Structure formats: structure tokens, C-alpha cells
């Protein structure tokens, strides 16, 4: 039995795995202590649970639990990492490098640092969505202190060459931050191997609860940060505020499940994604956005030419998908990520991000393929652009009466 709308928006947020919820419940009931309470069992129990979760989060990325700092989510982690490192190391230089396709949490943080007197280079990506390493090397300066590159892009799912970027940064003593919000449970992350100094994590993209995330802060070689939230001195002074035990427990279990199950899960999800991709690229004039090989198995971002994006979303309301990053979809701006990939406004507007996850079924994928075929056909019958293209008109030569 299909349940509507079919959820294919796992990159916006995932449902919490029932096993995660089960683990959280006791901490919403009898184990309600404040982990900072040092004088009684309620506090100790909460603290123990927090430390167990910290070990689980560390284990997924092969880090030391002492390198994990709890935050309210990946957005806060990105802010803490980039502002914290840029501010701490500002006597060494005030130049930051990032990509035009980063999440808003990184881009807007960099904009804020520009207001504070830092200089930021926003690098272009190639048409496949990937960073060109030569272009990256060329952008490095003597006063570059922080580089921030996401591991997996939230819109097109491409995986950036983190290992190579890390080598280059380490060689030059540059702090390297990686937003891995979309990567956990989808790609292997080994922080013993990767020369990454700071890494942001989110629970709710990996079947954990919202409102909790973490920042990995490397200890060897030691990375220093200026705290952005001051107070009781929690998290070794890097992030004050009462720790939300139930959410932390949830994140721990979610990351443990990811570690245990990602190998088999990603095979299954990859098969579903390929099924969806083959089914949809059957439709004429469709374009897959971003490199298809260097991408997580969960993502398919595809543009349907000659149909307008909003009417497309309206037509396929039986499936819950995103027409760009969830955070920007309230505005009618075409996706800046797709534009950075060189897509024109029309193709950016008519793009759909399908993101598949743990609870997606083959039946749901097949329904989606059939629905898209029917609706794209209908919208193209309605489309004067499609009509002109069928008649052999090159749309680029048309003089539009813009209003």
C-alpha cells in the first residue's frame, strides 16, 4: 500500500528511525537529568548517556570522542567552525576560501565574516559540480587561514575531493573545515586518514532527531576555536548551554545504525536511485544535474526542459520532493547551486531533487516514474516552448516580449 505523499525528500530531513525514537524515550521520561548536574544520579546517568553517544558519533567517522563537540545542528556547527577558526587565527591572515555551491549555513557565515573584515573567495565549480583542484591551488594565498568545502552537496549529491583538498591544506597549515551534514551514513568518512580539521554533522539528515548536531575539532594537530556561545563552559568551553540528553542519545544511536548498516543500505538505495534515473531519463529533454559517478547513491537531481518548475511541483504533489535546497525553496529564485553548475535559469527552475532513503520502496519509485511521465507529458502539451521546439525553432533565437 502506497502512502501519499510519497516522501522523496530525505536530503531535507529524514524520518527518525523507530529504533532511535525508542532509545530517546527513556530520556524524555524517567532519565530526565541535566548532564551537568554533578551531585546526583540523575545527572550522572544523563552524562553517561551523553558520553556513550559521543563515542558512537566519533566511531562513525573514526575520530576520538574527545574531538566531538555537541551543537544544536549542522548550521551551528558550520558557524562555530568557520567563525571560530577564522577569528582565532586572524593574526595569521584573514582570507577564507569556500565554494559557490556550499550550503547557506557556510555561505552566510562567510558573508558575516566579510562584514567583520575578512576576505572570502567563493570558488566556481565545474559543470559536474566538482571543485577543480588546480583552480583551488591557484586561489590559495599566504594569508589564507580557513578553507570550507562540503563533502556532499545537498542539492546534487556530488562528493568533493576532500582527501586531496585536505592534503593541500595541511601542507600549507591551513585549517580545513568540511560540512558533512549530507555525508554521514552515505559515504565512508575516516578522519584518521582525511586531513580534515573541523567537520560539521547533523542528526536529522541521518535518521536522528532535529535540533542536535556536532562539530569534530581535531586534537592532533590541535585546532583552536573562539567559542560563539558563552556561559556555563560546557563542551570544554567551546559551546555553552545545557546538553539535550534525549537528542544526543538519538544522534548517537542514529550514527551507530549508520555505521552498522550503511554498507548494505547504500547498495539497496543505489539500485532504487538507478531505477528512478533510468525511468526518468526515458523522458525526452531531461538533464541530470551534477556528476553521476561521484555522487551519493541517495540523490537524483534532474531538470525537465520546457516545463516550469512551480507548475511541475504542483503537478506532482503526490510525491514530496524539493525544487532546490529546502532552505531556499520559499523564494522563487532559481537554485544558486544549479546556476553555479552552469545551468540556465529555465533548467534550474524546472529541476527536481529526488532524495531516496531508508524507507523508500521499489513500488514508490515505480509510481513516481509513472507519475512524472504523465505529468511532464501534460505540461508539455500545455507548453508553447515545447511546441516551438517540436517545430524546430531554436528558442535562443526568439525575441521574447519580456514584461
Amino acid at each position, binding site marked *: 500500500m502506497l502512502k501519499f505523499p510519497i516522501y522523496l525528500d530525505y536530503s531535507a530531513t529524514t524520518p527518525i528511525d523507530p529504533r532511535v525514537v525508542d532509545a530517546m524515550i527513556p530520556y524524555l521520561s524517567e532519565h530526565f537529568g541535566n548532564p551537568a548536574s554533578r551531585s546526583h544520579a540523575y545527572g550522572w546517568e544523563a552524562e553517561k548517556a551523553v558520553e556513550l553517544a559521543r563515542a558512537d558519533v566519533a566511531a562513525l567517522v573514526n575520530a576520538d570522542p574527545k574531538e566531538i563537540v555537541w551543537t544544536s545542528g549542522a548550521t551551528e556547527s558550520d558557524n562555530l567552525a568557520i567563525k571560530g577558526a577564522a577569528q582565532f587565527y586572524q593574526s595569521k591572515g584573514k582570507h577564507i576560501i569556500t565554494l559557490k555551491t556550499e550550503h547557506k549555513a557556510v555561505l552566510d557565515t562567510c558573508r558575516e565574516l566579510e562584514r567583520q573584515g575578512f576576505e572570502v573567495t567563493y570558488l566556481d565549480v565545474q559543470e559536474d559540480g566538482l571543485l577543480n583542484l588546480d583552480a583551488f591551488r591557484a586561489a590559495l594565498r599566504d594569508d589564507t587561514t580557513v578553507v570550507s568545502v562540503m563533502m556532499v552537496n545537498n542539492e546534487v549529491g556530488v562528493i568533493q575531493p576532500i582527501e586531496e583538498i585536505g592534503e593541500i591544506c595541511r601542507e600549507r597549515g591551513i585549517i580545513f573545515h568540511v560540512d558533512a551534514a549530507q555525508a554521514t551514513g552515505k559515504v565512508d568518512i575516516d578522519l584518521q586518514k582525511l586531513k580534515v580539521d573541523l567537520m560539521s554533522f547533523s542528526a536529522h539528515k541521518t535518521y536522528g532527531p532535529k535540533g542536535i548536531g556536532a562539530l569534530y575539532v581535531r586534537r592532533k594537530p590541535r585546532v583552536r576555536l573562539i567559542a560563539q556561545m558563552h556561559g556555563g563552559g560546557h563542551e570544554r568551553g567551546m559551546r555553552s548551554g545545557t546538553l539535550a540528553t534525549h537528542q544526543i542519545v538519538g544522534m548517537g544511536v542514529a550514527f551507530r545504525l549508520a555505521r552498522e548498516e550503511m554498507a548494505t543500505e547504500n547498495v539497496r538505495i543505489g539500485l532504487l536511485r538507478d531505477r528512478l534515473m533510468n525511468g526518468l531519463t526515458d523522458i525526452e529533454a531531461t538533464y541530470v544535474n551534477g556528476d553521476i559517478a561521484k555522487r551519493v547513491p541517495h540523490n537524483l537531481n534532474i531538470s525537465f526542459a*520546457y*516545463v*516550469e*518548475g*512551480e*507548475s511541475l511541483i*504542483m503537478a506532482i504533489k503526490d510525491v514530496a520532493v524539493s525544487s532546490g535546497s529546502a532552505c531556499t525553496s520559499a523564494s*522563487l529564485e532559481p537554485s544558486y547551486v544549479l546556476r553555479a553548475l552552469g545551468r*540556465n*535559469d*529555465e533548467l534550474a*527552475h524546472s529541476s527536481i531533487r529526488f532524495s531516496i532513503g531508508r524507507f523508500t520502496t521499489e513500488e514508490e519509485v515505480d509510481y513516481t516514474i509513472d507519475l512524472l511521465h504523465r505529468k511532464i507529458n501534460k505540461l508539455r*502539451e*500545455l*507548453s*508553447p*516552448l*515545447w*511546441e516551438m521546439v517540436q517545430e524546430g525553432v531554436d*528558442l535562443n533565437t526568439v525575441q*521574447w*516580449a*519580456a*514584461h
Partner: protein
Amino acid sequence: MAYSDKVLDHYENPRNVGAFGKDESGVGTGMVGAPACGDVMKLQIKVNGQGVIEDAKFKTYGCGSAIASSSLVTEWVKGKSLDEALEIKNTAIAEELALPPVKIHCSILAEDAIKAAVADYRKHQETKGE
């Protein structure tokens, strides 16, 4: 975005979709908007010997409101003289469809499409007359 029932109805069941044959006489075609703006409307009117619009067809690339606006005007222009058709104002379209403020431009575009189709028809009549 919450659409009104009327927008949804026109979107689900658009009226008068299509195009007139290339050789049909008495046809005026208006094409307004641009792909880069997210809306292109093509409105065609077929005018009889008495100067009355006896049929209309449309195709629209655009959001639900744009599709609904153009579908609605194909219904409204039928049976009207050219001058009567030119009196259809965007405000009436917006009101009929209960368009939210961010979608008012769709009704303006539909009004422009009528003007463009009438102008195109009249231009053809003039060239024929010469």
C-alpha cells in the same frame, strides 16, 4: 503556496488548450513573457466576419496561476468583439481567480496576451487590406 479552488480547477482542467492550424484564417496570435522570467503565454483568437471572437486557444509555460489566468481568458474572450475583449482588465482576472499578491503578474501577463493577440489579428487584417 495555497492556490484557490478556481486556480486549481483551471490548472487541473485547462480549457481550450492547443493551437489553430497554420492556414486557418481570422487568427490572431499573441505571445508574451519570456522563459527566463518563468512565464510564456501564447493566446490565439479566431475572429469571424462580424468581428466577434468565436474561438480561442492557449498554451502556457508557467506556474499554476499563469496557466489558470490564460485558461480563464480563453473562456472570457469568446463571444466578445475585439474592443470588448480589450476591456478585460488584469484586476478582474486576479479577482476571479483570487490570486495572491505575488501572482498578480500572471493576470497582467494574461491581459497583455489579449492585447497582443488582438494587435496581431488587426495587423494581419491591415496587410490583407493593402
